[in-house]
């Protein structure tokens, strides 16, 4: 079973949530990354995610395994889209179940923060003015 997956079509949020249900879990926390209509002052009309799939899957799996080891959680999953996405579409989903909410929130935060930092996936934004550009941030702040 892989806990981190790349998806080239719409993420099955309902199915993922069901997979995380467990009788030992009293808490569920999830994060959803949506495609936003602006970035750094520019109007965005869509974007494209590209991945180095072989390495992205391994590194993503490692990150979710780390969360399972570090936090008192029952189960965790992460799915990241690749391909073309429209404004408002779901780009990444993280879900965590735990006995208690503290660990669920913390692990969820950990997974998305580490995925953004480490997994070889790149975003290309398409701007309203017709331009397109690859994002290569060299330092990440929580607002990113």
């Amino acid at each position, binding site marked *: 079973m892989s806990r981190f997956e790349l998806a080239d079509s719409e993420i099955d949020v309902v199915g993922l949530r069901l997979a995380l249900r467990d009788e030992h879990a009293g808490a569920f926390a999830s994060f959803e990354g949506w495609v936003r209509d602006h970035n750094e002052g520019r109007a965005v009309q869509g974007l494209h995610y590209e991945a*180095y799939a072989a390495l992205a899957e391994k590194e993503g799996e490692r990150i979710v395994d780390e969360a399972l080891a570090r936090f008192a959680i029952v189960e965790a999953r992460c799915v*990241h889209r690749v391909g073309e996405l429209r404004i408002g579409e779901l780009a990444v989903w993280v879900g965590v179940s735990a006995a208690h909410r503290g660990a669920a929130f913390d692990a969820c935060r950990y997974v998305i923060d580490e995925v953004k*930092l480490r997994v*070889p996936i*790149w975003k290309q934004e398409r701007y309203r003015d017709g331009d397109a550009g690859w994002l*290569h*941030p060299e330092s990440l702040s929580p607002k990113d």
Partner: protein
Amino acid sequence: MMAAVSLLYFASLREVAGIETEAIESVASDLQGLYFEAQARHGFKWPQASLRVAVDGEFARWADPVREGSEIAFIPPVSGG
């Protein structure tokens, strides 16, 4: 000593190189040297220090030697999530 390797390019590196992959003969002794060869060939603006490197689908170190038959990817700063 020459090593036959294949290189993978992603995102803006691929855009600049105009190709996703290339099979080359390298005389570099380590992965850093391999990047410098590619940089000279394609005119990449990225300094090596800004990139990571992967060999056969796993992160590697710049000081690692170039192994015959391996597949090397240069990883520009990521922007997933």
